[in-house]
């Protein structure tokens, strides 16, 4: 059963004088107990969506229901949600402890129980030493964690978290991600998280909704986004470093597939490396976009020679940018690759690692040996989706 349904929701700001569509015909369902991340760059519509769910923004068109109840016209307080928002500030005259425990106090939870639960929450978010302080005397990162604690401690039909760790330093963020996920999962809470940080989305969320220009680009598990990106946007937005894209003219000559790239570079593969469906796609395309993840680019003694532009070693991996076919291709190796600017490395792409996209509209045509899901990976109902992945 779904806990949140967003049905055909559109948000237009300033409709009379200067209409701006922030969210366009959005359909999204979140199953009970699922954690979903809304991921996108600034201005993509993710925060507008969250604010409509919270009730801070009117819905121009469409419907939002929480736990089977239409909440589209309800005030925020009547929606049964707990939220941690940027700027949704702590009450200044109360200590951090009083702020975190406030909702429990209103719900007439026994005092010792409140103390116990606030202590456990503060311990989880590493703010136990500031419980006696007032909001004005603590740092921005501490305020953010106090706000998060106040939201997480509540029983609610839905938890809304807006960039909940944006102000924290990386080590602390990495630690808290695991703890927050564990906490939400243990209680079976349903949560939506808005973030521009894909590491956070991947680590915390069961499913990720990728948005751009007010439109949902893809809704799937982290694995689906990685292995079966619905279009070039998702393919290049999700993944670190971003996916390489090359434009090719495919030519089938006898038992050989030849991909003509810019700069007179060609990639040759035996025809048998491709499924019949992909051969058909290649035969009918005069131009095709090929995506290849940096981690899938093989560097070594064999393959096509390419000139190193940048070689950065990050401890457990090397990031190389090389000049190849008139563009820059990024390769990641899990060992330290020797070589510096101007040196030649050889790179190769395995046919299984290639993603094929329509060169004009960017829609995925095939991934590796499989043809793409005709629905483009947009699975409206996670419970009934073909790759639901829920247990």
């Amino acid at each position, binding site marked *: 059963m779904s806990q949140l349904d967003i049905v055909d929701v559109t948000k237009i700001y300033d409709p009379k004088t200067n209409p701006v569509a922030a969210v366009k015909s959005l359909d999204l369902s979140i199953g009970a107990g699922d954690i979903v991340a809304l991921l996108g*760059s*600034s*201005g993509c519509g993710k925060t507008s969506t969250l604010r409509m769910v919270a009730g801070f923004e009117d819905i121009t068109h469409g419907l939002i229901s929480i736990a089977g109840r239409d909440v589209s016209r309800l005030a925020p307080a009547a929606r049964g949600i707990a939220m941690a928002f940027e700027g949704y500030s702590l009450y200044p005259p109360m200590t951090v402890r009083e702020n975190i425990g406030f909702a429990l106090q209103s719900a007439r939870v026994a005092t010792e129980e409140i103390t116990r639960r606030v202590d456990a929450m503060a311990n989880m978010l590493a703010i136990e030493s500031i419980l006696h302080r007032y909001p004005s005397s603590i740092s921005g*990162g501490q305020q953010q964690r106090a706000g998060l604690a106040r939201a997480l401690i509540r029983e609610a039909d839905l938890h809304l978290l807006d960039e909940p760790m944006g102000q924290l*330093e*990386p*080590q602390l963020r*990495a630690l808290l*991600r*695991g*703890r927050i*996920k*564990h906490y939400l*999962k*243990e209680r079976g809470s349903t949560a939506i998280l808005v973030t*521009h*940080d*894909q*590491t956070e989305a*991947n*680590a915390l969320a069961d499913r990720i909704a990728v948005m751009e220009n007010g439109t949902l680009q893809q809704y799937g598990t*982290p*694995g689906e986004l*990685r292995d079966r990106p619905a279009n070039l946007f998702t393919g*290049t*937005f999700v*993944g*670190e*470093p*971003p996916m390489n894209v090359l434009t090719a003219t495919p030519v089938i000559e006898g038992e050989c597939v030849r991909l003509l790239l810019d700069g007179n570079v060609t990639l040759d593969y035996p025809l048998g490396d491709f499924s019949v469906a992909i051969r058909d796609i290649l035969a009918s395309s005069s131009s095709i976009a090929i995506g290849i*993840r940096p*981690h899938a680019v093989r560097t070594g003694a064999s393959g096509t020679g390419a000139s190193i*532009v*940048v*070689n*950065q*070693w*990050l*401890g*457990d991996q090397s*990031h190389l*940018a090389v000049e190849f076919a008139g563009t*820059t291709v*990024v390769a*990641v190796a*899990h060992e330290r690759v020797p070589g*510096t600017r101007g040196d030649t490395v050889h790179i190769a792409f395995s046919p299984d690692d290639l993603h094929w996209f329509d060169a004009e509209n960017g829609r995925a045509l095939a991934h590796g040996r499989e043809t793409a899901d005709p629905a483009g990976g947009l699975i409206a109902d996670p419970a009934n989706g073909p790759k639901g992945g829920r*247990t």
Partner: protein
Amino acid sequence: MTQRTYKAADTMLALSNITRRYGRDTVLDDVTLDVPRGETLVLFGPSGAGKTVLLRLIAGVVEPDGGTVFIDGRDVHGVEPEARGIGMAFQNFALFPHLSAHENIATPLYALGDDVSKRAARVERVAKLLKIDHVLKQNPGALSNGQKQRTSLARALVAEPALLLLDDPLRNVDAKLRFEMRLELPRLLAGLGTTVVYVTQDYKEAMALGDRIAVLVDGRIEQIGTPGEIYLEPATRQIATLFGDPAINLLDVEPVASEHGPTVSLSGQQLVLDSSLAHAIGRPCVLGIRPESIGFADADDPEAIPVTVEAETPLNEKIVDLVTTLRGREILVSRPVHMPGPASTSVHGASIRGASAHSTSAHIVIPTGQALLFDRETGRRILAEGEQRQAGHRQAGQRQAGHRQAGHRR
């Protein structure tokens, strides 16, 4: 005022015994540092370490309580920020909202007395370099985050400062843009020959961009070195933890003597450390093992250590397994997605603490040659016997070592 000069001609920036206090807090404690001409030096450290104060001090916005800042050989005590020949860019971009991108970029040029056409030419040039020449007429409100960030960088570069100070400039942009700039910045800066002090909290950025990295902790420089030195030979346990994702595993051990050399015990398996660490025998130590150096193995491998796999979590293109030893010690193991995992049994659930995961038994192998050993009390790395002299040299000869690297970019 007497203007002392600093002799080394190839040193762009020299900090000599800098101390800065706020009230009773010492935020910078005896910081000494040389940055050769053309080098990108990354100032790295946790928040509150003093990175931004140090940057402001170089810029001239605050003055030190003790010590001297030399820029291009000149003691800049009392010299106004505008007169220090510095360009700066910040994480929040700090653009004037009512000015166009062009006007924002041009602001440092007014102080130089350039005429209108010369100003325009310089703005165009730097905008082209940063690929924002097509948005120069727009105000910051109409720019994307990436364009704002490039505009802010263009403003820092336009007057061709000899010294560029960048305060976490990529913090507020998304992963794709951050990665693009990570590849583009070194090329750009090398082309301009600018000396850069770059502040970041992101260790990957520090390793990717820094010719050298200075690690600042509690107002002190704990280590200065190339990215390789910092990662492979961290001076302290804390530095080892700050570099690497997932973070290095730290296990309390007390090496004992055996016929093969100094030995520690883990899940019933004896791990023999390098004989050059024999002086650590009998000392309370912490063994540091990077998650990526640990591998899964078959049970019949003579070096196999039995563990329980508690949870498996994806991290970018890696898989991270949380395993526990027989005594319940937690160890993180990371591997590329395509590498085989623990046996063939699949592990479901992704909770770090493992509540929702189904546990399964497996075996790991720890290559002790790559392990680091720290003194449990001081947190300092226990150096191998041959290494001690070298490290001593490095401290004494830091200045010279820095100079030799002038202009050599990786």
